[in-house]
């Protein structure tokens, strides 16, 4: 059963990391993330922090029910925050005829997928907490779990760099980002570059 719990924790991390990589791929194709999209990425990473925290604890000692409850409880809190953000963005574009923000992926916009992800995180964390261990146990697959948690750290760092390029030396992101403002801030963009416009719909 402890092997199942370790695999489930790693699967949770990999599933959310897959969604984050998909969103990052859309950004590389030119679909610039809006401020709410960036907030949802932050919430997804905080959701990942729960199982990553559990695995990190298991590297040095046995984990018990309190560890499971703390780590998956943190995931649920982050998922509730993320579901609020993505739910709000869904509601903004819920009116008939609204094209939504960005290009749909597999039939739904990224913020709709984000809502599905957050609801799934809450569901899986709740199910996981129904089957807490009765005594402390050591989780197997320490090497694999280090690779999985390392992947999550790498994705977090990648997003940090991408957002720094998008935000530049400004306090917050613009409503409709369509360029990397760091290039302007550093004077690396040519004079023929298009200034930020509001042609795309607001997030």
């Amino acid at each position: 059963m402890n092997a199942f719990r370790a695999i489930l924790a790693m699967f949770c991390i990999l599933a959310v990391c897959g969604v984050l990589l998909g969103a990052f791929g859309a950004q590389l194709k030119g679909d610039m993330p809006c401020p709410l999209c960036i907030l949802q990425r932050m919430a997804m990473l905080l959701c990942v922090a729960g199982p990553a925290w559990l695995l990190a604890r298991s590297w040095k000692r046995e984990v018990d029910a309190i560890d499971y409850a703390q780590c998956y409880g943190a995931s649920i809190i982050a998922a509730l925050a993320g579901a609020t953000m993505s739910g709000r963005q869904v509601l903004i574009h819920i009116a008939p005829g609204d094209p939504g923000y960005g290009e749909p992926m597999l039939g739904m916009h990224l913020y709709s997928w984000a809502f599905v992800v957050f609801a799934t995180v809450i569901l899986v964390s709740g199910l996981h907490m129904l089957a807490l261990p009765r005594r402390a146990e050591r989780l197997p697959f320490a090497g694999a779990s280090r690779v999985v948690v390392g992947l999550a750290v790498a994705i977090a760092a990648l997003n940090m760099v991408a957002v720094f390029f998008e935000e530049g030396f400004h306090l917050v992101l613009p409503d409709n980002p369509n360029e990397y403002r760091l290039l302007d801030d550093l004077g690396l963009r040519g004079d023929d570059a298009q200034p930020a416009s509001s042609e795309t719909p607001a997030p």
Partner: protein
Amino acid sequence: MDTLIFLLIVLTFMAMWRGKHRAAGVLFVLALVAMLLLFRHHATDTLPISL
């Protein structure tokens, strides 16, 4: 602000990795609160519908 929150998240993961679990918990809460404050800013200040 967004970059700093991502930095907090990366630091949270690094603290977990190094076994500093209390520091990781503090960083997690800081990142969560900062994220919610930023959401409040975007939700009430820059978008047409207020909370």
